[in-house]
């Protein structure tokens, strides 16, 4: 039996019919066409599927869509400003060569947003600790950490 749920996705209210066993990741990708969140492992070990749920990062590959009924979901597609401008974290990732294959990038940027929203000036250790659950096989993390750090440095206190 399908269930009706209501989600606010990237600021837009959506009413959706989902199976009780449907994962949020698949609902986002297949029903809403938001393919920025990726399947990397399906068991919450790689962080490629990270989205923000009411501002907090969750692993959408392990989250049932019905369980988040009524929540606000932010995906990478929802980070642009209303005028289409990039979020400072997106700018910084581009500026610092923090993007290679790009597959982990959406999850990584959303983790960074969550960190900087809570703690505008994190230490390098805090940045590393915060993104340790998001795997990147290309970059070695150095330029990602640098990109996040630079946003915090250039932000007004």
């Amino acid at each position: 039996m399908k269930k009706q749920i209501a989600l606010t996705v990237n600021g837009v209210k959506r009413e959706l019919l989902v199976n009780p066993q449907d994962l949020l990741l698949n609902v986002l990708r297949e029903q809403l066409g938001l393919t920025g969140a990726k399947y990397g492992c399906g068991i919450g070990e790689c962080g490629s599927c990270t989205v923000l749920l009411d501002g907090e990062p969750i692993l959408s590959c392990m989250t049932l869509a019905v369980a988040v009924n009524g929540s606000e979901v932010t995906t990478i597609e929802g980070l642009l400003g209303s005028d289409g401008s990039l979020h400072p974290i997106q700018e910084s990732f581009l500026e610092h060569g923090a993007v290679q294959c790009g597959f982990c990038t959406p999850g990584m940027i959303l983790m960074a947003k969550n960190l900087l929203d809570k703690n505008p000036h994190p230490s390098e250790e805090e940045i590393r600790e915060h993104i340790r659950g998001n795997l990147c096989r290309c970059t070695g993390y150095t330029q990602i950490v640098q990109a996040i750090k630079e946003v915090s440095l250039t932000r007004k206190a």
Partner: protein
Amino acid sequence: MTKTHYHAIGKKTVRKDGLAKVTGQEIYTSDLFLPRMLHGRVLRSPYPHARVKKIDTRSAEALGAVCITFKEVPDITYAERIVTIPQKTFKDRHVLTDHPRHVGEAVAAVAAETAELAEKALGLIRVEYERLPALFDAVEAMKPESIALYETIFFGQEELRVSNNVAATREIIEGDIEKGFLESEIIVEEEFRTGRVYHAQMETKSVVCQPEADGGITVWTTTQTIHNVRQLLGEIFKIPLNKVNVKKISVGGAFGSSIQMNSVVPIGVALALKARRPVKIVLTREEDMVDHCKYPSYIRLKLGAKKDGKLMAGHMRVIVDIGAHNTQAYPLLGCMAGWWVSLYRLPHLKFEGKAVYTNKVPACAMQGFGNPQVTFAVESLMEILAEILGMDSIDLRLKNYVGLGETFWGQGPTVRSIIQSCGVEEMLLKGAELSGWKERKKTLEGTIRRGLGMARGFHTSGAGAPMPGEVIDYSGSIVKINEDGSVDFMTALMDLGGGTLDALAKIVAEELKVPLEKVGISSVDTRTTVYDVCTHATRGIYCGGGALHKVTAQAKSKLLEFASRILQAPPHALKIEIDEEAGQGMIYVEGVPGKRISVGEVAKTAQINNWGTIAAVDSLRQVNCPPTFNAQFIEVEVNTETGVIRPVRAVLCSDAGQVINPDLAEGQLYGGLYRGLGYALLEDTDYDKETGELKNRGLFTDFKMLTAEEIPRLEDIQTYFTHTREPTGPFGAKGIGEAALNPTAAAVVNAIYDAIGIRFTKIPVTPEMVLKALNEKRNQG
């Protein structure tokens, strides 16, 4: 270094695919959804070695699923990696098999309306297996009494008997090693072992296949080579190549895992052809982990030297456990010999290599193609030798390295070229200075002990050479100048994330003197491009970029010819420069005011006058494969209570010739360090000898990789690029990628030795190994 005035080359710019990647708009294979698309799943053998006695798909079909088994796929033995010339290619694979030789080998597949239904159907296929004895050790496998995993395979068109499960052997002799060792005053010998690492590219192997009305097929897949995928599909399914179209699509990392046409591709095509509907298969992580891995190695290395450190002779014996399929281990062994002999001058040498079948996951190329394995052994043994000689190991390296003017084997014994640019000395000296090499002190006390280690290495830039060898290596491009002065280029060359295509765009911009933002990288497929062999062997910039440079120069000749008609001056009197204000390339006659026209105006005038489009298409085989050298100085902390090793500092030196994308080149060094540290300290795949399964069960939970927390801090990683230019490369460039990992493992074990006085010859060096060795040392005490 020659003084250069480049407007694009060497400038830090935002990568062209960056915007799409940071906004989630970049499309990967798994992101494709086509109308009427079915979801495919693959049935895999639960046994390491078995025969399928019976297979029944009726219940699955009753659910509405389309099913295929080994009976319904073309009966063709193929090789998934066709970088090697056909007559030297070993073939032992089938699209689906009734004789699985490793856990996870595909025997059947289904496609259904939803992924869930496909999964359900998969569970309803009944298979009766006859289990066969399985082999998990290469030495064991070579014993005459061991079961034969293959009776015969194909070598080119010929059927070849396999004896003692040996898939390939290679013996290479130069000089007379007996004489060489007799003349040596010091001989060192050691055994080394390296792990069976999983690529762990973030995107699992995937495919989307769309059957076309004309009997053709369109394919999107995770690959490093669209043209080789096309050719193999044409061969297997007997479809003319003009009807097999492989579309280029972004890849979520590769590291060698998609140098071949992945096994999921022909399975997807077979399903789509039977269903007459598009089919998508995205491997689960568990499936991906049983698809391929890095070649593990056992290396026995013996070196002889004079007391002054001059190397006299070397003998390397290699055994590689290739797993269940031969993904071209013959060139691997040749390359391993080549990596070895190109590190240090050896007047007398002998290489003996064996590649052996077992019932494990098939090994294939992974960053370095045998080079990290060989460099680990050589750079460990050089350190041992230096200590015995009482020499600084950097001096020993400087005395013996293969450098400028000497012969280098870029891809085994048949691909040789002369080194024309070399930054080895600069890197060793500068790296020593930056890392404090000379001032390092031994402190063998306390719980946390620090040690500094170094190692050097290199990788080839492609597989080009003056003579054709065993490896196909050329690229081709199309360049087209538009009527507003912007430029499109088309290449089949893949960008695996490193920024290769940005480098190529800069080559076009620089040659035509047009602004970088006016150069567009076209979306292409196999129909609209000329052949490019593959993005492998660190060949993207040097070979792919070299070909594009040649084609751009041809388009430029045509541009200048048209401009000469307009300006009424001979083409060779014309110059071209970038006009930032106009955002255009400008063509002018030097010293003649008024004789000036933009690139766009020339193209537009050519169109209005019906002269034609300014475009060119051509191919290029590079006749060199310049080594991209590097050196790494790595400091570690060893916790003697927990055995945990922490890399705390790194100086990464690279001789990539002219650097084209500075920040992305740094990214290659950081990424290589990261994967090299994992190779040295953590990553391996063990097997349950009873079940033949991976002990990690294909899960990231148990295939551990380093995270952002275990990497040296920002201020503790330094990069250094040498002031070299490769005369044969596009704008002086050579490759960089694979070299960045090759010396890391040796630098780490050398650092561990510096810290605790214990030499490890097997990687990864786990905390358990450290504690065990420390205990043994104490007991000997």
